[in-house]
């Protein structure tokens, strides 16, 4: 145990952070996308370490299975393969460093503030059944709004991809 964290957690965290760094630093854009996928997988393993089975598997199914594919498709369909950047690091890197440090400080403060005062609390066992019951009883409105959002997205995709109606030759 290092700083109260297990070895497994430290290893997975290092892999996740390495993937995220790779996604920011690598020259080839598709390599960046694949490195981001490693980050997603690392996050899924972290969820599983916290005994959140549903969240972990949903992370793999949605992020690795769908979002990563979406990212690589978007890269391939919008830019040429093999064009690598000349400058990997931007010229205004001091400003970027300052903003990143500010965001990190904010997130760190939020996480440290949320530790319970009365010591470690035993985590309650949440099964998939509990998640389902919560979705149907307590969170039914967000569920329905998400469904409407997904339907709108699908209809929008179909409309964008639909071929335009051909103008008749006689008309001008």
């Amino acid at each position, binding site marked *: 145990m290092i700083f109260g964290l297990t070895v497994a957690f430290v290893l997975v965290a290092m892999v996740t952070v390495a993937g995220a760094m790779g996604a920011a630093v690598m020259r*080839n854009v*598709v*390599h960046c996308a*694949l490195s981001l*996928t490693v980050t997603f997988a690392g996050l899924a393993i972290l969820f599983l370490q916290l005994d959140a*089975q*549903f969240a972990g*598997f*949903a992370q*793999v*199914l949605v992020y*690795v*299975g*769908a979002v*990563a*594919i979406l990212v*690589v*498709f978007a890269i*391939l369909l919008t830019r040429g*393969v093999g064009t690598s950047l000349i400058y990997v690091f931007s010229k205004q890197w001091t400003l970027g460093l300052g903003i990143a440090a500010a965001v990190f400080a904010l997130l760190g403060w939020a996480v440290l503030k949320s530790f319970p005062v009365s010591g470690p609390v035993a985590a309650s066992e949440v*099964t*998939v*059944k509990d998640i389902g019951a919560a979705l149907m009883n307590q969170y039914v409105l967000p569920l329905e709004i998400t469904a409407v959002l997904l339907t709108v997205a699908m209809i929008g995709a179909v409309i964008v991809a639909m071929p335009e109606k051909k103008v008749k030759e006689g008309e001008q």
Partner: protein
Amino acid sequence: MNGIWGQLDQIFVTLQHWVAGLFPVWLQPVVATLIAVVGIVAAFPGIFALTTVLERKGLGRIQNRIGPNRVGPLGLFQPIADGIKSLTKEDIVPVSADGLVHFLAPVLLVLAVFLGYATLPVGRNMVLLNMDAGLFFFFAIGASTELSIFMAGWSSRNKYSLLGAMRAVAQMISYEVPLLLSSVVVVMITGSLSTVKIVEAQGGFTGIFPHWYVFTPWGFVGFVLFVTAALAETNRSPFDLPEGESELVAGYFTEYSGFKFALFFLGEYLGMLSIAGFAITLFLGGWGAPFSFLAFLPSWGWFFLKLLAGIGFFIWLRGTMPRLRQDQLMNFAWKFVLPMALLNLVVAGAWRFMGDGWLRWVVSTAVLGGAYVLLGSVLMRRQGIGPRSYRYAE
């Protein structure tokens, strides 16, 4: 279950506990898991080898030829010859190919496919990981295989590979939703995502007939949709446009040779076996016997018999049906399979709440049959298929 048949049923479990018992107590869980993993790694590639021979002989017979018959009796040692060939072939990597991604793609595929076997209940008490969300684990891992296919196609720096990879990924994504929806029906009725509970829920018998989900209207439709989507997910005929030899050379594994090609082959067939195994678990009663008087035979024997029947069906389908074109494939997925899967969900819900009796059978069958006929006729009307016409060269 007692007696000699009960012992035979649990023989692998007893073996595992006996070997684990030879080690100190703190090491026993690790050793037990390791033995189960070794069992999976030994059994399923063995079935893969048998499948390759069966496929070549079966396809040969369907196509009115004999198939391989030189190596061993009836050509049964052909997989050994294939293995030696693929190990000794030169591994050609194109100069402009992306080396690391090119190497990692088959590794990732085989890794993901082997992980998927973890929650498959092969027999009574014979599952590697009895997870609360076991079925979800399988589908999540299966979604990762699409990424390896894309990696293979992109890293080869070959237009045919990239085209094949894009087609394959589009096909796999389109059929992922019907695959999940047709399995959600089973989860809904069983009330659990655990594969062990799903098999146990199908374990009862009325008279001599089993309670398998395939014998209910919604289960039958779900089974057909699941098998269709499974064939498309594993790029298997008639959905094998991404790897058809007459279409795209070899699609996304054009630039792979030697052992990496064998790894792709292995990954694809193992994926087919695992998804057939899950179809059996979800709809065909897993390791349960088909008749109550045959329930004394070992559970793992029934599972592998059903798996063999499933493989035979896939091979038969490959030899018989013509290949679907890419747009036909996508039309089929989004316009037919997906609406049927959603309707199946509604019908299964109605089934659950209508209570026991003959009424729910009649209503379910009528709704599903009517929807099938209606949807089919509406979609076929737009195809404009008339009597066959021939065009000859002048």
